């Protein structure tokens, strides 16, 4: 027998369930007085440098319904393409009626050869392992991006490109299944 490699297996994932708000955004869930603020309400300080943008979207299930209980987290570089530990992260919850979520942030800069992008992590009832994807932006130079260039068939690249509906306002819908299924990542 050779030596053991001694890698510990990762703890298995379980669904976040329908009550994820209690643990992650308790004030939003109406449980006030335990935490002063829900974590991740804004990814950057109000006076942070960079171009302010808004990303809005919904997460659709296989029947075309928007998930009204989904929670998302975003992680991104700043306007200069730098990841800094105390900024760049946010938590979004879908509106309980419309299923729409919104991220008010700064347009990230390119990170080396990677085109500007925001990582998204999606959890909800019925999702057994948090889903990772990325928001890229319409109009950016994405030719050298190593992730987008791996997507096959090429037409699925569009599922990761947010569309600019008004200046600085982007739309990014996520489709869990179907013809428009979003590209999810195993990174």
């Amino acid at each position, binding site marked *: 027998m050779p030596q053991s490699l001694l890698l510990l*297996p*990762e*703890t298995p994932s*379980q669904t976040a369930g329908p009550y994820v708000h209690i643990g992650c955004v308790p004030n939003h869930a109406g449980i006030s007085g335990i935490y002063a603020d829900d974590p991740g309400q804004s990814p950057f300080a109000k006076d942070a440098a960079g171009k302010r943008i808004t990303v809005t979207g919904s997460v659709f299930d*296989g029947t075309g319904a928007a998930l009204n209980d989904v929670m998302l987290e975003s*992680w991104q570089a700043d306007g200069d393409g730098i990841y800094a530990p105390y900024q760049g992260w946010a938590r979004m919850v879908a509106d309980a009626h419309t299923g729409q979520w919104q991220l008010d942030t700064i347009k990230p800069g390119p990170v080396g050869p990677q085109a500007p992008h925001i990582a998204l992590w999606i959890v909800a009832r019925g999702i*057994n392992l948090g889903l*990772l994807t990325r928001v890229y932006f319409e109009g950016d130079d994405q030719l050298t991006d190593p992730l987008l260039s791996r997507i096959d068939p090429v037409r699925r690249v569009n599922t990761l490109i947010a569309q600019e509906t008004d200046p600085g306002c982007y739309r990014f819908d996520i489709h869990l299944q179907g013809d428009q*299924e979003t590209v999810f990542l195993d990174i």
Partner: protein
Amino acid sequence: MIKPLIQRDHAQHPPAYTPGYKSSVVRSPRLPKLSMPSTRTEETGPVFGHDVLGPQDNNLVINYTGQSAIGERVIVHGRLLDANANPIAGALIEIWQANAGGRYRHKKDGYLAPLDPNFGGCGRTITDDQGRYEFLTVRPGAYPWPNTVNDWRPMHIHFSVFGHAFGQRLITQMYFEGDPLIARCPIVNTIPDPAAIDRLIAPLDMACAMPMDALAYKFDIVLRGTRQTMFENRPEGL
């Protein structure tokens, strides 16, 4: 130092499509994921300072009103490690759970069991330099849920865990040793490997139980590891 993540072993996790858990049917991606080595985006992640924590954040027995919640008092503690067995220090762990009767303080939960006026149901902490964490809470009740006609969740605590990298992000659930509902639970059974299920079951830990006060359960959590070699073979920014 930012290091590449070791690729995820999907055999440890439930697949996306698990028809025994009906909610997964229309919420599961069907196409293969795009696999590639980690980049700076996944290898970095947010850091949370102790200044975000209140003094009672990890004490669910009293953190809602200051008065004791009803239920069996239990300490839940353990260590946060990466796959390389290194402790993960300074990491945020958030938990949420039903009260002792199996009822969540949530507008979508209409179970017959009453709310406990002194139980909110959430707690959080940051791991110490050895990766250790602890909570004081009440044992959550089992509860029924709509899936097949008579499905019940075993007693469980939901855990949301940050590592040092966004690619390590994990949400899971902890179960209690000896609960006969574990083996019957469609959500537990989304995990195909029985040995992986066992890693979600916290043993009763009498060495840490406090006499005349609280039982204890020990739950260690392992996040993805990083490649330890010092050789670099990638351009800046990847």
